[in-house]
């Protein structure tokens, strides 16, 4: 076995160590730059999911409010009671005994439930909601506030039923 000659080409151990250290520093800096991007992407993903749930809740309520006669809070401020117009209730088969028992919206464990009291049906229209508050203002408007998400990702929508 022959010993390597003094003129042989190649990197010394010190050069390799310096190269690895410099590469590690560059990779660390790149990852640090990537971290906020990754965090904001996750935040946006959560916000998109929450916004979808909020939209589902609002669109379902709009469908019922389209043919509503009244929309009022119950004794529970987290419940909304919608009573249909007589013609709408009759067409839906929900008119009995000279009145419509209506539709109840209530929040339970973050899930918004739509319960048609007259027809005896129940449906979860959205999940992940933080708040669902119903308030009668000045006797002329019903304010419904829905919110999703927490902290920076919190999003809130207020619907006003002006009747």
């Amino acid at each position, binding site marked *: 076995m022959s010993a390597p000659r003094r*003129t042989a080409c190649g990197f010394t151990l010190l050069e390799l160590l310096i190269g690895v250290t410099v590469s590690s520093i560059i990779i660390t800096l790149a990852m640090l730059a990537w971290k906020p991007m990754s965090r904001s992407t996750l935040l946006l993903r959560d916000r998109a999911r929450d916004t979808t749930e909020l939209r589902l809740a609002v669109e379902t309520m709009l469908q019922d409010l389209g043919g509503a006669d009244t929309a009022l809070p119950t004794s529970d401020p987290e419940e909304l009671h919608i009573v249909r117009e007589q013609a709408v209730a009759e*067409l839906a088969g929900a008119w009995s005994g000279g009145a419509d028992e209506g539709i109840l919206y209530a929040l339970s464990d973050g899930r918004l439930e739509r319960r048609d009291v007259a027809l005896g049906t129940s449906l979860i229209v959205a999940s992940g909601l933080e708040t669902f508050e119903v308030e009668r203002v000045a006797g002329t408007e019903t304010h419904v506030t829905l919110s999703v998400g927490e902290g920076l990702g919190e*999003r809130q929508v207020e619907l006003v039923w002006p009747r």
Partner: protein
Amino acid sequence: MSSPRRPETGESGFTLLECLVAVLVLSLLATGLAKLTVHHDRIVADLESWTDGDPTWYVTQVDDDLARLVGAPATLTADPPPPLSPPPAPGAFAVTVSEVELQLDPPAASARAHLQEL
């Protein structure tokens, strides 16, 4: 004046050309990464401003009775709707029927009338 020293055979080290190529490649990589970061930040800022805000919407029913009957959903407006006109005071009205439409299949009737307070 002495002439520049010629590298001896077997002396290790990088030439100027090698160093320039390495710097160029690293610069291209850094520029690409910076552009990517700036572009991503801009998209995120746009999306955040798009989904930002806690709006208040006013619920408005459609005016058409038939559309409401068949399930037309209410719509949302950012501006408060105008106050409802007060109901007419109790009293006598002159009713003028200007148009009547009758239909047999399916049976339906409609009329256009004009009310005038006496």
